[in-house]
């Protein structure tokens, strides 16, 4: 066990630090910055281009595909150093590099890899994920959007249906899409995976107004959307395997989210208690913040253990869901606590109090963190079943042809 870098890692970290120090500040955003979606998307693209130009995009992808061909630790080191800057990234870029590219790299043809990987690393192609549907969230394989072969002999597919919760779908160039191609099979078996150009006729995105006030999520309606067979990823009927590749990447990536307790400690220290001290002098507050800090540290070090497993070629499986399960609830709880610290001024702060604005936003946002990427309840089931070996949930729809299911 060693938290110190090897000499090679230290050299790589120093190189990354120097490059970031020279290039990242120009792309940084001030805390509490809110901007129109289109501007945020443009800034994300600009940062992706900067990364690519500097040779920091796709560190683990083969050189032949525009990456840097490194083995793994370097990507973690770069992400840690990059994480020290407040850069315009978020879901907009991570869906492309963290979810679309891994599934293309694993299940795609050579032509698909050439077509998509390097342009995505360059920031020329951005991605959204078209998975969830109104009645298929945690039970993703219950999806109904269907694709049938066109009757003109072209081999093209005609897609009809509706997707939902598709972050940035109105601003991105391509989507990763899973649809039902054979309703006569049980629900997991009749699915097929595609990449789809979001400018294809028949695709309509409608931003959803969220409780945070933002609208990064969409409903996406697909009406007679024609997708060439060349954009199918993996074999017909093997869409579920592609989905699992995406979800494992999402889960391992989601644990890396920084949801610092430190800013909340600073926030308590900056909040007067009306008796000449600050709210950080309050024993109950101290205790709650310290417990949260201990949990946060545990999450990060558990993530380090998972990365060690991955680096040894082991599959963490359902362990990968533990970090997100822990941090989403902790994040909600501590931001809820922070919202109480300033009393009524925490509800309606004076203009310019960006720290309270951040706390308010994070409290709202924490709700979706407990749902997206595997709801708390789904993750608990997976941990109980796959880590502890407890019995699986009753599945009424197992082995039943999808078209015979009720509902």
């Amino acid at each position, binding site marked *: 066990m060693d938290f110190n870098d090897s000499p090679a890692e230290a050299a790589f970290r120093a190189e990354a630090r120097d490059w970031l120090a020279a290039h990242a500040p120009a792309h940084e955003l001030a805390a509490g910055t809110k901007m129109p979606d289109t501007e945020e998307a443009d800034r994300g693209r600009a940062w992706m281009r900067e990364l690519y130009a500097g040779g920091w995009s796709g560190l683990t992808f083969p050189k032949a595909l525009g990456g840097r061909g490194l083995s793994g*630790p370097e990507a973690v080191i770069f992400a840690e150093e990059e994480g020290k800057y407040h850069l315009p990234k978020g879901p907009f870029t991570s869906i492309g590099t963290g979810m679309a590219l891994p599934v293309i790299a694993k299940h795609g043809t050579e032509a698909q890899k050439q077509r998509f990987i390097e342009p995505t690393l360059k920031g020329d192609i951005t991605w959204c994920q078209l998975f969830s549907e109104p009645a298929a969230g945690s039970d993703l394989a219950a999806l109904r959007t269907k694709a049938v072969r066109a009757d003109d002999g072209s081999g093209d597919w005609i897609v009809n249906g509706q997707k939902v919760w598709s972050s940035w779908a109105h601003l991105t160039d391509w989507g990763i899409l899973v649809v039902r191609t054979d309703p006569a099979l049980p629900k997991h078996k009749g699915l097929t995976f595609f990449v789809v150009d979001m400018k294809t006729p028949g695709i309509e995105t409608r931003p959803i107004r969220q409780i945070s006030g933002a609208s990064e999520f969409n409903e996406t309606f697909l009406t007679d959307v024609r997708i060439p067979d060349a954009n199918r990823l993996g074999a017909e009927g093997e869409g579920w395997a592609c989905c699992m590749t995406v979800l494992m990447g999402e889960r391992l990536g989601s644990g890396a989210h920084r949801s610092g307790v430190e800013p909340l400690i600073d926030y308590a220290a900056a909040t007067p208690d009306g008796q000449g001290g600050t709210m950080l002098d309050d024993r109950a507050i101290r205790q709650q913040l*310290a417990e949260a*800090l*201990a949990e946060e*540290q545990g999450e990060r*070090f*558990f993530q380090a*253990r998972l990365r060690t497993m991955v680096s040894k070629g082991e599959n963490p499986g359902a362990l990968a869901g533990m970090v997100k399960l822990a941090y989403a609830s902790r994040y909600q709880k501590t931001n809820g606590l922070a919202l109480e610290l300033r009393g009524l001024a925490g509800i309606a702060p004076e203009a310019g109090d960006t720290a309270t604005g951040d706390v308010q936003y994070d409290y709202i946002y924490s709700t979706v963190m407990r749902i997206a990427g595997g709801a708390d309840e789904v993750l608990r089931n997976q941990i*109980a079943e796959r880590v*502890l070996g407890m019995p699986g949930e009753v599945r009424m729809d197992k082995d039943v042809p999808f078209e015979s299911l009720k509902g």
Partner: protein
Amino acid sequence: MDRNDWARAAMNFDLSDEQKMLGEQARALLSDLSSFDRLRVLIDSGAEWDEPLWRALADMGFLGAAIPEAYGGLGLGALDLGVIMEALGAANAAVPFMSSIVLGAEAIRLAGSEAQKAAWLPKLASGEAVATFAYAEGPGPVFATGVTLEGGRLNGSKSPVADAGIADVAVVLVAGGGFALVELGQPGVARTRLDSFDQLRAHYRLDFAEAAAEAMPGAGKLDRLIDQAAVQAAFEAAGAAEACLKMARDYAMERQMFGRPLAGYQAIKHKLADVAVATELARSNAYYGGWAAESSPDDLPAAAAAARLSGIKCLEMAARENLQVHGGIGYTFEANCHFYYRRERMLAVHLGNRGFWADRLLNAQPGSQGKAA
């Protein structure tokens, strides 16, 4: 490391193969010698400890694991000690390992004179002598300093003191914050056994009346000592929590309710999933604490406090829910839940309660975190 670096995720954040093997050896020994039936026998006989087990631990070299080779130990590190503590926690072993090795021997190593080290460390490593660390003086400050050492004479009282009935020597926290080394088998020391909530860890009141004692030269080592011990306590807690989790799972798999295994109910699955998560987070913090104790002393205060807090948190959940999953049978002496249920409360207050460690964690953070009033 600077503030941003502490969370660095090294790619070899795991125990070494040798450390894993050491842990397996300890577990194997404990499963042979420290069964739950054995624990019940010890309680029923009013035993203060499992002496044969202590001898076996000594024979395996476990007692001297972290004691320097120059003093008869193996000279291993905090992580090696941690895997042994984890195994002791899993077994709920009735031995004074925390008192004699983690606290007593380490206090002497950190703060003792050369003569004190030479006199005591080899005996502690071999198990020939047992030590303890006396810090509390009833309700009040966790680390109390009402006992005085003047002219080689110790006066005052410490209570409770773990394992003081079997200890040959105590390191005593005294007025001024220094340590005194006192042999307990002398006329100036009165030992009164207390009724301990943890029936497998005897506690005593110690009254010193002009007891002969030696000052220890290494003043100011208290923080280092208790930070290191907090990391080891976190390993012990994680090991005990893992054992509770496994016990609850196994019982739930076996027990049929309304025509199916108890383990099939989401209420039970989700409860145990939460315990599993808390246990892995605590173990991760303990690993980091062990690494910091060995390799990065500046990081130790924060690492130790975090490990301590999450260790107790996971064991509290695990011990309570283990008994709950067992239902009424869990309330019986014949079931095994009570060992951990009692041990957890003892560990939760030993070396400082939640509030004490919360303060230490916040105070160890860089930046603007003021101290509690």
